[in-house]
């Protein structure tokens, strides 16, 4: 069984479980997020009554007020879940999409914060997703904070990170103490191997289980109806992961 799925499939299945763990009415998914998009479609195909707003859907794009509408919608409290990543992510769930070195990224400049400095506060919750799990990405303290993981009293904040999913494990975030705990490790990883590759300190509570492998049903959905939905927006991802190509 262990080689029967691709890493992206494990990640999509894992994200879908996090989606379904909390009542979720509406998810927005940004550009360049094929794995989160696959996870959302999987949750839908598994029967979760979720509305998906896929920001870069070419035909039938959900927004008719321009790019502003996503942020307004989130301000209104209508987005229960958003996905964010980061060039750096630290142990307090701070995100750095700006760059390393002195402001504004004198060492390595990343593209920029996009809407993260708003979405991270105003979405019902956020799932952090970054496949690369290395001390370079998961740092003790980000060089520059694009969006903070927690906020001081007096700052309106609707939600926080629910979890951080990487290519090696799943962390749960605890906004009350501003720290991650290790929830599960993917096949082939251990608490120690994760610790060695993580720049920040995190909590371990008891025995840490292995992240469950995708079931045959989950894989069938992913490779079937989920892939169908994703072909238009993410043709390269579908070709690479699901080995499906658009008819010429």
């Amino acid at each position, binding site marked *: 069984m262990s080689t029967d799925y691709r890493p992206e499939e494990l990640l999509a299945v894992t994200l879908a479980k996090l989606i379904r763990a909390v009542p979720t009415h509406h998810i927005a998914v940004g*550009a*360049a997020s094929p794995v989160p998009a696959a996870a959302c479609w999987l949750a839908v195909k598994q029967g979760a009554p979720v509305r998906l707003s896929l920001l*870069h859907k*070419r*035909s039938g*794009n959900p*927004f*008719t*007020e*321009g*790019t*502003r509408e996503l*942020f*307004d919608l989130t*301000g209104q409290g209508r987005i229960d879940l958003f996905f964010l990543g980061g060039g750096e992510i630290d142990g307090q769930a701070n995100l750095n*999409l*700006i760059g390393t070195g002195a*402001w*504004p*990224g004198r060492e390595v*400049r990343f*593209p*920029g*914060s*996009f*809407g*993260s*400095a*708003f*979405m*991270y*506060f*105003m979405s019902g919750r956020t799932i952090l997703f970054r496949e690369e799990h290395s001390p370079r990405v998961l740092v003790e303290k980000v060089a*520059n*904070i*694009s*969006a*903070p993981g927690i*906020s*001081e009293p*007096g*700052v*309106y904040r609707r939600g926080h990170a629910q979890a951080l999913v990487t290519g090696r494990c799943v962390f749960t975030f605890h906004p009350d103490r501003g720290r991650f705990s290790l929830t599960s490790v993917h096949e082939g990883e251990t608490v120690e191997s994760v610790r060695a590759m993580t720049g920040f300190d995190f909590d371990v509570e008891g025995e840490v289980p292995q992240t469950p492998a995708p079931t045959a049903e989950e894989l069938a959905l992913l490779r079937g109806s989920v892939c169908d939905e994703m072909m238009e927006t993410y043709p390269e991802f579908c070709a690479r992961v699901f080995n499906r190509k658009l008819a010429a």
Partner: protein
Amino acid sequence: MNPTDIESMAASVPDGALIALPPDNSLPSVALAKALIRKGARNLRLLGVPVSGFATDILIGAGCVASVQTSAVSLGEAGFAPRFTAALKAGTITITDATCPAIHTMLQAAEKGVPFMPLRGIIGSDILANRPDWKVIENPFDANEKIVALPALHPDIAVFHGAMADSHGNIYVGRRRECGTIAHASKRALVTVERVVEGNFLEDEKLASGTINATYISAFAIAERGARPAALLDQYGFDAAYVSTYARAAKTDGGFADWCAEHVFEARAEAAE
């Protein structure tokens, strides 16, 4: 209102102007960006609404740009914007980072004629720490809440590409209504279009809702496929091959210069023949 020529339109842009540009998914006028390069524009201050893409990168590469205010600069699937990255490293441009809804909000404040608008979020981010022009105030309705107040932002010139203009200078942009906000907030709006059609879009119920009133339009010029490589509504799609060719070429100064000679100068010369 009659169409102008795109080179004259570019000539009307003074060096140093603050120019608002929509990103690659929202009707950028790449055609006017190229005309600005041909004109030799200098010291432009670009505003990404709310992020920056292809047009910004080529203007930077051609040495037209002094500064960029934006929430991100990227070529999307084609990766980092090479000329932006190189210029930032070389110190030939400055960047003022924002976050997407903050840019929309600053323009909406200008659109409404108010001096500022509040926005939630942002507090605790280093973006705020590096924006002395943004202020944290007390929510006047809840003394326990701190909130960011963003100043109205009035670009000198809005630049975008519409699908078509009518006889009155009304511009059809369909669902990309943020172009309207940019035009409302800016002192002038310079617009390229695929074509000009007879009539009045405001009298056509289906077109009216996607139309920007000529009130806001200073001039328009015809530029076929003027958004390319960006997509134009349902009329043409994103040209990923064009962008990845560019992204490869523009990794070096020389590569950019060659690309620019071919795609900005020669292409125009051929079209003019």
